[in-house]
């Protein structure tokens, strides 16, 4: 399945909303997920596992360092699809 970056971004937002139990549509691509979701490092790793399982990819966590918004996260995922 080939995804566009927009599709990937939307899937990341939907998955994060489901995982952290926030209402669908409340997250935006430019949101800082640490601030918006109030998550810590362990929860960030949970999200990483969730994303890797969903997209069937591996995303080394050092690539996540410095990434705090969904859009950039989706771009990192897109480059692994």
């Amino acid at each position: 399945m080939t995804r566009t970056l927009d599709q990937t971004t939307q899937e990341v937002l939907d998955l994060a909303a489901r995982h952290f139990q926030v209402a669908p549509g409340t997250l935006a691509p430019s949101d800082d997920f640490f601030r918006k979701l109030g998550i810590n490092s362990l929860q960030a790793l949970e999200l990483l596992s969730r994303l890797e399982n969903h997209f069937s990819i591996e995303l080394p966590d050092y690539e996540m360092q410095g990434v705090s918004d969904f859009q950039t996260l989706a771009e990192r995922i897109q480059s692994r699809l």
Partner: protein
Amino acid sequence: MKSFHGKALRWEWREGILELALDHAPINEIGTVMLADLERFAAAIPALAPETSACIVYSARKEGFCAGADLRELYRGAAALAEKERIAGVRDFLERIHVVANAMDTAPFVTIGAIHGLCFGGGFELALLCDIIVADKMARFAFPELRLGLIPGFGGIPRLKRDVGNAFIRELLLTGRTVNATRAQSVGLVAQLAAEGEALKVARLMAAQIAKFDPGTRAAAKKFIKPIPHDELRQEIDLFCELFARPAVMAALKKFVEATDAMPYLP
């Protein structure tokens, strides 16, 4: 002692199956309290072994199996000591945990690690003592020691070398990255994947299967197929102590203990 309830873990024996539950907040960090309870378990193995076919090792903590060594306790203890005493203290801790590790590694019953969530550093090394690993799909494994200027010290690398290829070990060790359960299975580290929250259930079914076989044959097969890399384990202790003597390690431990970063677990 068929059941035990300590400060950091508990075990229960039922119909030939032993279940060892790590339960020490926040995520089963291995410090003096956990070590003392692990030593109690290791000391109980000879008495438990004749009637035990399998032992499941799991965590009762929601966040994961084990986050590794108790770095806060390590830093606080080491900071109060002069360099020579600091190294002697660390060596003593390593020697003690290696005795526990070798006892668990060579137990005549089959050990099954039921792993979920975080399985990092010393926790990963604890998991590697198990003969078979069942992992929850959300489990993550890592050796983040290099960010502290150290190598794994509880026998991790020599034991991992028994199971997986050197390229995977180098990637884990030299990048400090975490890997998910699917990758861990693909390289041969994890035997079976379980759905979220189901690793213990899967491990219990496996233990029931293992219990069907002749105990003597089972023990002989395990001994034949799972040698203890004694020489490398000794070398690892020496190298760890040599690295621990460098000032950069205390600086890195201090940074970790004081970290307010969003992802302090990552290098």
